[in-house]
């Protein structure tokens, strides 16, 4: 392949546009989160900087960039500075293959899904390096937790992506969207969709899976020693990842820019794709506002004992359907059948005994009964002259 100058310029232009688009998208997510969370908590969120507080993320960015660059003295300098880059660059690089609309991508790789998986694993290395190179106990604890959590939750993501690849017959994002002509894969394989969303939450590090940078315990985890611009990079990477999970959910499971409207002008397709992405992201924020965070051992056991078996079950069921040529609705049925028992068990496991216990406590509460009041004394209005009431201070 010869590399002509026009090619290089064209690709650079596309990359530059992509960087801006992704950065603006991540910043819009910052704004959306603060507004949504604010409304859910009974307050309004940012309102002062710009109309509706729209310029708030820019103000945050400027503030972070202006902060003093502090690195702990005992940290390893080179690794300390490289770690944020190792987190940010892979999460940005995946966007090269993501199509925003029909023919709206930088490069349509035939191995797009595989590319995504490979790069998301690279991000884990960056986090662990951040924790280790900070040379602080809280950071090391956070680094360990993040390594364990992220590596474990990669497996369900890989499995569900494989399911989608099998259904579409291709590893390229474009083909996956084109294959969802009639029915989106969320309807075909709700099990895979559910597992993907949960595992995606854990991969991004959002509540209820944000133990590794839990503010109320390890005060930032691997990020605790980073300040200013470095922390801004981590922050941005987290939001880009969140947007990525939303975009992937929209493309792989909800039909991207195509379903249900088919072939429409590019702008409308992009709007539909963004709408679906933001819908998934809004659900992610909603979950953050509602749930406390899981403890690390509960998180790990949930991943290994619940999500991984479910993702394998989805894979096996899809394989059977393709091999034996069952109709599509059979797949939906089977995946619902597999999905329902874990939900049922989960509810029975914690909630039902707690409700029974609450009822029991209502019964054993000690009741105190009011005694009859004595007849109230009439208001005393006569003179209060009594010995020893002079003020002799």
């Amino acid at each position, binding site marked *: 392949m010869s590399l002509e100058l026009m090619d290089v310029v064209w690709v650079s232009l596309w990359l530059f546009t992509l960087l801006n688009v992704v950065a603006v998208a991540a910043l819009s997510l910052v704004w959306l989160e603060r507004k949504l969370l604010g409304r859910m908590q009974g307050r309004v969120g940012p309102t002062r900087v710009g109309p509706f507080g729209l310029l708030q993320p820019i103000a945050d960015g400027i503030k972070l960039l202006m902060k003093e660059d502090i690195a702990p003295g005992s940290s390893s300098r080179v690794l300390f500075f490289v770690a944020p880059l190792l987190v940010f660059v892979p999460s940005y690089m995946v966007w090269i293959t993501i199509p925003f609309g029909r023919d709206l991508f930088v490069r349509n790789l035939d191995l797009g899904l595989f590319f995504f998986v490979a790069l998301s694993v690279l991000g884990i290395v960056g986090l662990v390096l951040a924790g280790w190179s900070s040379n602080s106990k809280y950071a090391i604890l956070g680094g360990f937790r993040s390594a364990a959590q992220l590596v474990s939750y990669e497996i369900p993501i890989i499995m569900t992506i494989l399911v989608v690849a099998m259904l579409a017959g291709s590893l390229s994002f474009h083909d996956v969207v084109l294959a969802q002509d009639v029915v989106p894969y969320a309807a075909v394989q709700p099990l895979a969709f559910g597992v993907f969303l949960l595992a995606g939450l854990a991969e991004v590090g959002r509540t209820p899976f944000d133990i590794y940078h839990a503010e*109320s315990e390890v005060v930032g985890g691997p990020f605790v020693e980073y300040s200013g611009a470095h922390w801004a990079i981590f922050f941005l990477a987290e939001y880009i990842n969140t947007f990525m999970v939303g975009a992937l959910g929209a493309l792989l499971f909800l039909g991207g820019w195509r379903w249900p409207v088919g072939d429409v002008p590019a702008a409308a397709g992009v709007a539909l794709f963004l709408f679906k992405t933001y819908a998934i992201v809004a659900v992610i924020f909603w979950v953050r506002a509602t749930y406390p965070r899981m403890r690390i051992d509960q998180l790990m056991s949930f991943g290994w004992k619940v999500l991984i078996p479910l993702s394998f079950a989805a894979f096996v069921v899809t394989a059977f359907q393709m091999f034996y040529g069952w109709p599509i609705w059979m797949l939906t049925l089977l995946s619902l059948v597999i999905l329902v028992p874990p939900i049922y068990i989960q509810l029975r496991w914690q909630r039902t005994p707690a409700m029974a216990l609450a009822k029991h406590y209502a019964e054993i509460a000690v*009741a105190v009964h009011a005694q009859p009041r004595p007849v109230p004394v009439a208001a005393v209005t006569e003179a209060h002259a009594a010995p020893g009431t002079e003020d002799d201070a």
Partner: protein
Amino acid sequence: MTTERQHDTIDMMLNMGPQHPATHGVFRMVLTLDGERVLDVTPHIGYLHRGSEKLCEGESYGQVVTLFDRIDYIANLNNELAFCRAAERLMSIEVPERAMYIRVILAELNRVASHALFIGTYAIDLGAMTPVMYGFRERERIQNLFEAVTGARMMHNFIRIGGVKEDVPDDFGPRVRQLIGQVREGIEEMDRLLTFNEVYLARTRGVGVIDAATAISVGLTGPSLRGSGVAYDVRKDDPYEIYPYLSYKVPIGENGDCWDRYYVRLQECYESLSMISQCLDQMEAGPTMVQMRRIARPPKGEVYVHSENPRGDIGVYLVSDGTDKPYRLKIRPPSFCNLVGLAPMTRGSYIADAVAILGSLDIVLGEVDR
């Protein structure tokens, strides 16, 4: 819980220092860790020690009331009540009935405000960031009422020896009834979000278990003790003011874990709200302060009086030598005594559990250190 070591590893000491988002004030916990398991916890207190007890020896009795506001700065009126009861007991003063009703209404409102703050901060310690906003909203409503009645949102100096400072405003009754309705809805909102939430249950059930015998030996009181199954409530067992004329329930738990302590406090909120409306029904016009000297001079003697703080049993031991200043004023702070129970509860659990257990004890450092 026994912790067995499989490998020959070194214990790590993790300092949850005086500055930490989850320690509810200037409190330092040194955890000895084996990986993620806590082997031992050493609490260090004294960062907020202001010498309150010694200060009291130089202040007249009226001035001591202001000091008691600042010991437990979340349940101010309950503390003022505790001290005023001690001084009144020593002087054998019988407070007029209307004053008692006002005191109890304000104390119970303060209890609800304190528990609302507890639920909110406990939730955010565990990662749920919404209930704290609701809790503080309810607390603001109650503090609005306090400002209308006492003149201050927090350090009220309203409950005085011999009664209350002045009568309540004319719209007190309807205003409090409206407040009860609003606060009840707010607490129910937090209840719906948290109590049967799967993740919350997983984080708090079975965590920080303390059995009744250890709890009694350690000196735990209040909702922490009731969560372990001991049905001791000062309002029930040593009734004071007009509590004998109210019907209510004292919620108790059985397992002694964090969820039980949280649930006991939640139910106490509802019970307090119903107590307040009973008080409003029973309250009648009358005097609100006893005729007495401006500067109280109790006779020589000693008295020990204890009341129910939102955190437990606050006791005031007053030794008087006949002058206008106390000779010795010893405060029994419930949070101080509850903190002794932190070590038995935390041994063998995870780091994340240490935060959950400390939160469930509901300590206020002003009380712990005085």
